[in-house]
């Protein structure tokens, strides 16, 4: 149950925080079609976040989705740092969302086979949404990469900004069920390092190959290169999955939680 709670929290927080960054794009996009599409992606991710946080709360006995979203402190959030980065321009948006949706679709596709029926159902619903997200951003990546010299420069700069955060997508929390790199990959985790129960998630490292292949295809169509930048280290080996975030996260949470915390007894 502990493993399930943490697993759902990770994936739920990714969606919640990424959705927040997309929400901040509302009313700022280049075209109305993009307003509709980005709001739609933000809504889908918010919906995934709600289901996953609720599942996590049920598994851990915590209060519900709103308690998790609005009354946890920064170090309790388990999202990858990619999700929390401050927004840049439209090139950065597309670059980040391309990475995020490609990775998440690969993860969700496999999670449809999770032994936890709730998680598996959430994944099945999410796959349809994420496939649309990925295709939408891949099309934009191609348009920008193969559009004008300036747009090419912007999408390349965006990729350079987000690429240091890519490796973290394939890691687990240091303290929770991290798999040793030498173990066979790609299967639903069938062990729990805490010794209780059957594994519910997949080893995130197992989707790296699929991720690389899909992106290679998109990059080819977009005439773009994988950026030559180093992965961003954590602090003492700990990063987003361990609750060690970037300096952007505190400001994000201060904004997101401000009304809920000003009225802790409020009903909405």
């Amino acid at each position, binding site marked *: 149950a502990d493993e399930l709670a943490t697993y759902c929290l990770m994936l739920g927080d990714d969606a919640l925080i990424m959705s927040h960054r997309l929400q901040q794009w509302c*009313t700022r996009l*280049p075209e109305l079609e*993009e307003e509709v599409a980005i709001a739609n992606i933000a809504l889908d991710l918010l919906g995934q976040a709600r289901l996953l946080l609720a599942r996590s709360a049920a598994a851990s006995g915590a209060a519900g989705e709103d308690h998790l979203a609005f009354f946890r402190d920064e170090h309790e959030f388990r999202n990858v740092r990619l999700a929390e980065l401050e927004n840049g321009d439209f090139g950065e948006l597309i670059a980040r969302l391309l990475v995020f949706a490609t990775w998440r679709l690969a993860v969700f596709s496999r999670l449809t086979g999770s032994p936890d029926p709730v998680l598996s159902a959430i994944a099945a619903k999410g796959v349809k949404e994420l496939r649309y997200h990925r295709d939408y951003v891949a099309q934009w990546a191609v348009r920008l990469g193969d*559009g004008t010299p300036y*747009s090419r420069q912007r999408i390349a700069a965006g990729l350079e900004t987000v690429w240091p955060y890519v490796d973290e997508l394939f890691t687990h929390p240091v303290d929770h069920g991290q798999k040793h790199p030498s173990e066979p990959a790609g299967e639903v985790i069938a062990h729990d390092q805490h010794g209780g129960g059957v594994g519910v998630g997949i080893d995130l490292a197992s989707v790296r190959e699929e991720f690389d292949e899909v992106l290679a295809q998109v990059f080819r169509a977009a005439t773009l290169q994988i950026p030559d930048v180093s992965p961003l280290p954590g602090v003492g080996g700990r990063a987003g999955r361990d609750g060690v975030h970037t300096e952007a996260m505190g400001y994000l949470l201060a904004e997101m939680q401000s009304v*809920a915390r000003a009225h802790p007894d409020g*009903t909405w």
Partner: protein
Amino acid sequence: MTPAAQALSEPELERHFEQVIERDQRIEPRDWMPDAYRKTLVRQVAQHAHSEIIGMQPEANWITRAPSLRRKAILLAKVQDEAGHGLYLYSATETLGADRTELTEKLIDSKQKYSSIFNYPTLNFADVGVIGWLVDGAAICNQVPLCRSSFGPYARGMVRICKEESFHQRQGFELLMTMMRGTDAQRRMVQDATDRWWWPSLMMFGPPDHDSPNTAQSMAWKIKRHTNDELRQRFVDMTVPQAEALGVTLPDPEISWNDERGHYDFGEIDWDEFKQVISGNGPCNAERLAHRRAAHEDGAWVREAAAAYAAKQHT
């Protein structure tokens, strides 16, 4: 213009147009129509489209801070609907020969207007509910009759839009109901928001009839079906009982039922404030336009890239 239409003389065309209007039938984009009708209609529909787009701002202001995930989803979906309405309405103007980009430029150059209501700030989360209740409520009063607009695409658009607006209005009212059942601070928020939005909502119906010179022609063309004051009265009559049900006080001591008229009386609107706001001097006019302008300008390179890419695909 269809070949059949080309065969007719201008007076014949005009008579045909007037008959269609008279019989409460629809004018369609390819039909002949007087230039003045076309122009008035483009202006009307564009203003409506601009209002949807500018109107996203005050509400989007609270998406990231919504205090529950359910309310966040509702608000985000609502703002998305507004973008959808804008898109739909700009398309309607395009059937009349207008161009979306040109209209957007007219908006950001202050050459076309949008609803004065969006020049007020949203200052607490109850504003989201009050906008649903009062602003969408007023919009519905204005728009339901337009489902019978003589121009087909606009009339059909209004049917869809009104349906969604009613949904938004109920959601807003439901948020306020929930907040009124909450803490004292929440009730105070609702009252504060009501105090700030009430009068501007009444102004949404436009100037008083004696000061609304274009109303007669628009009504004759059936692109407007009731006068401003009629619609305003209808809104007040609808809203006063809702305020009572909610338990908030409308900030107008003169509101009282008039048995003789069969309507609620209400106080005098501050028309000076209204004129200031529609002439650009409201509390948020500059901010709203600057925001829209920045989004449009920041997005120029993206639109250019899309155009360049599309051009490459065709060669």
